[in-house]
């Protein structure tokens, strides 16, 4: 008869940023069963959106679902409302939205990479990446006035204009970050503790990625061509040089490489935006109350984010449904843990870049 032992990971654990509990059923060192509990930080934001706030303030409420992808949340909600009100946003506002979206992606990926390093026991690299991430935070603060909660997007446009001084600073800082990211690519491919150690650990095959509806860098590392930036028309991603980054291995190393390539692609896109930012207004006037329902998807740093908004012609909305990337990937996470060693679990978990405050909303 086989004997198994239950070992929990979390809800407070040294390798975790946020509370989540995994209950691993282990047979010796191998994980044979996974149970997860993700609801520790449930705040009832969906309920608050339909009872406490009017539709024009909800953009700021949903930005507080998650600190790292705040901009994607408020953008998705805003685009959903703009669709219902038939607002056409000026092209300058669209480019500024992409600019901040990509800056946000760069800093979020850097945070994830630094935590992967920390979980591999490479503290110096963790410090280095976190230090370099400050360059991105600095330009985000210059552009929006805040480091984390940008509150940059409102219905009909963006809140602040960009000026030449800020644009030059962004270009300079992005150049410096690009140089540093090149250095990381070297470390993540050649350094033993970051590359070889991670090969074939926590692998997800392409077929399983399809079956479990994996999204974001997790799916792209397995070779699945899913990137919402490729599938939407609200933002002109194809004009600014978006390239899908995929890998075939599907292991932790592949995820890191995909993230690094995405940072490089994002830097390239930001440079292209700043080189050709059009003239014009940043705000469109609008009238009326939203009516009807709309589904909007965007690519958050961790994957696909979906907003479903239903309105009935009054200032209060009927339903706001937020489907966050980590929430949708939990079945895939549980599948990946099967058959791995328990000792690898923290490293695998960090490579998913889980965002639990998104998940529990």
């Amino acid at each position, binding site marked *: 008869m086989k004997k198994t032992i239950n070992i929990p990971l979390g809800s407070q654990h040294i390798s975790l940023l946020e509370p989540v509990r995994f209950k691993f059923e282990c047979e010796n060192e191998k994980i044979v069963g996974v149970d997860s509990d993700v609801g520790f930080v449930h705040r009832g934001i969906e309920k608050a959106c339909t009872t406490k706030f009017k539709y024009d303030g909800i953009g700021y409420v949903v930005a507080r679902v998650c600190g790292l992808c705040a901009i994607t949340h408020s953008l998705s909600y805003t685009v959903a409302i703009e669709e219902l009100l038939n607002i056409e946003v000026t092209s300058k506002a669209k480019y500024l939205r992409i600019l901040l979206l990509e800056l946000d992606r760069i800093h979020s990926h850097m945070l994830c990479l630094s935590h992967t390093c920390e979980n591999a026991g490479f503290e110096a690299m963790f410090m280095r990446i976190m230090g370099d991430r400050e360059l991105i935070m600095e330009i985000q603060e*210059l552009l929006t*006035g*805040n480091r984390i909660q940008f509150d940059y997007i409102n219905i009909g446009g963006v809140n602040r204009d960009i000026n030449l001084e800020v644009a030059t600073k962004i270009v300079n800082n992005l150049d410096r970050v690009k140089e540093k990211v090149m250095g990381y690519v070297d470390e993540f491919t050649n350094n033993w503790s970051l590359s070889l150690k991670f090969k074939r650990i926590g692998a997800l095959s392409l077929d399983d990625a399809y079956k479990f509806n994996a999204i974001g860098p997790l799916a792209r590392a397995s070779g699945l061509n899913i990137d919402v930036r490729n599938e939407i028309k609200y933002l002109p991603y194809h004009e600014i040089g978006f390239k899908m980054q995929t890998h075939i291995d599907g292991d932790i190393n592949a995820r890191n490489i995909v993230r690094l390539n995405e940072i490089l692609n994002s830097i390239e896109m930001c440079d292209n935006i700043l080189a050709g930012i059009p003239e014009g207004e940043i705000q469109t006037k609008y009238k009326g109350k939203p009516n009807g329902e709309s589904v909007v998807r965007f690519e958050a740093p961790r994957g696909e984010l979906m907003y479903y908004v239903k309105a009935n012609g009054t200032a209060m909305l009927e339903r706001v449904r937020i489907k966050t990337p980590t929430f949708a990937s939990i079945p895939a996470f549980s599948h990946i843990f099967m058959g791995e060693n328990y000792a690898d679990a923290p490293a695998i978990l960090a490579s998913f870049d889980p965002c639990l405050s998104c998940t529990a909303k």
Partner: protein
Amino acid sequence: MFTSFFKAFTNLFRKPQTIDYPLTPIPKDKDYRGLIEYREESCIYCLKCEKACPPGAILFVKSDNPSQNEKNKKGLVYNYNPYLCIYCSECVRACPKPDEALWQSNKKPEIAIKSDNVNSKWFELEKLK
């Protein structure tokens, strides 16, 4: 390995990346988002800022000794809670006279302690509304 050894050695003589905070002040840009400031004389009491504020950090409540502004027919007094404010500057955009009556500065709010009773004072004001 040699390069990393060399790097580690030079790191000994490099300055830290962090700011020596109490001695050196944190760099502050003039556009950073901070407190909302208000000038009573220029206000026309349209109450647009109060309606626009997402968290409800601006309240106009009736007072016994209102200001001498002739636009203020209902005897209202402006109240602002910096601890509730999210500094999104929706109010400034809604204001018909931005930069004169209502504008955003780059100042920080003072740190409130328990004995200041900021919350209970604000709840009293909300009841008056």
